């Protein structure tokens, strides 16, 4: 027992403190990315997942400067040979992040890596906000109204806010009929909940404030004593969005990049961002919230 403990401890020591000449910042950024890759293994080709697992278990693989270039090249090949226009936007962002780590495996510059992570997050939210400003159906609240009344990813939590469960099922069925040519492309009427009318406006304005605020905070070169605002805003977005809608892939990636972009002290940073991932992935947070409202199984 004691010899096993000593061996394990040595491995961890090697992994975290004596790996190549990477800084602790890069080592933890790499480690949290590897954990993200294992949690979201369906996003990655099997070979990349095997590499990520090997890197966590074998210090020599973790220490290799070719690890991230190999992961990046494998991901790019898989991406380019698939249905490129059907990849989700966060899968594109994953590629940019792999590219970043591949570059900084060679260019040992923590400050520049931190800035790259910050700008990636900032521009993601800048483009996300720009689309939402440009789209009239988002500006008017129609996006949230239709989605909140029909899409199963939204409707289960909307029931907590007053949507009738039967209405959610009926709406989803009405909108899904287009796949059957017997029905043709008939229009449809939604069974709506008047109690939610102001809620759609609240969600629309709230999204502009949070996403626009994130773009501003991450793109603006804040003085160091205010950089904690970025961590706070990202945490608000993370909890607000991913408790509402179960799409944790993008959230986890933002936690990884948020960790890399953060200026707060390393131990606190690990606690915050690892905590956010645990909140979404390990503890069934969303299910607990739904159960609290008496929704779901």
């Amino acid at each position: 027992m004691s010899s096993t403990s000593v061996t394990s401890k040595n491995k961890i020591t090697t992994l975290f403190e004596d790996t190549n000449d990477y800084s602790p910042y890069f080592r933890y950024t790499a480690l949290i990315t590897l954990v993200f890759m294992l949690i979201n293994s369906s996003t990655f080709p099997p070979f990349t997942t095997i590499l990520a697992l090997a890197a966590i278990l074998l210090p020599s693989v973790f220490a290799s400067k070719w690890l991230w270039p190999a992961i990046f090249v494998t991901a790019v090949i898989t991406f380019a040979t698939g249905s490129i226009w059907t990849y989700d936007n966060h899968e594109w962002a994953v590629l940019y992040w792999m590219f970043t780590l591949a570059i900084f495996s060679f260019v040992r510059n923590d400050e520049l890596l931190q800035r790259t992570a910050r700008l990636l997050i900032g521009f993601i939210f800048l483009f996300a906000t720009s689309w939402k400003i440009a789209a009239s159906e988002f500006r008017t609240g129609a996006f949230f109204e239709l989605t909140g009344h029909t899409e199963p990813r939204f409707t289960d939590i909307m029931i907590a806010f007053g949507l009738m469960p039967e209405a959610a099922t009926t709406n989803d069925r009405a909108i899904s009929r287009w796949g059957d040519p017997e029905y043709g492309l008939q229009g449809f009427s939604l069974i709506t909940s008047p109690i939610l009318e102001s809620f759609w406006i609240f969600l629309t304005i709230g999204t502009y404030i949070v996403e626009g605020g994130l773009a501003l905070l991450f793109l603006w070169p804040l003085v160091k004593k205010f950089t904690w605002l970025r961590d706070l805003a990202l945490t608000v977005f993370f909890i607000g969005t991913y408790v509402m809608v179960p799409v944790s892939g993008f959230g986890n990636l933002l936690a990884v990049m948020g960790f890399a972009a953060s200026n707060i002290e390393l131990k606190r940073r690990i606690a915050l961002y690892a905590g956010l991932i645990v909140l979404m992935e390990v503890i069934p947070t969303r299910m607990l919230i739904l159960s609290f409202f008496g929704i779901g199984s």
Partner: protein
Amino acid sequence: MLLPVILLISVALNEPRLHLQDNLTSWKGGGFGMFATLDRHTYRPIVVNITFQEKTMQVDFRSYRAAIENDVNKVQHLEDTFALPSQHNLSVLAKQMAEMKYNVDNEFAIASNGEFGIPISYRQISIALYRIKYDAALNTGSWIPLTSWPEEKS
């Protein structure tokens, strides 16, 4: 060293052009327009008509999906076409659909990759893609034309 950031910006700035020119859905393509529009690629009904012997008949598109389910390339192209229905992608889809044979069942043409059925040329095919439109004041939705192939010349 900010190459990943430059790459992100370049890809994202290209998306509005593809959106306006080729109807790329904002949910895909690396422009970060997800959760901004209702026009998702999974909410784009397709209507394919084939004309033979001076008669036009709608293809039951589910039969085409079933006929290609084991052909990875055709499935990939179909999914790409729903997300980016450019004239090029639609013409390739028409050519792939012309590789099938068609049988008539009630008022629909049923695609099959078997030996029996009517062979057609891709020039006998027309494709129309639709998108969702929601009127929040009336709580009603409808499907409006998004694009078509062959392209209608005005």
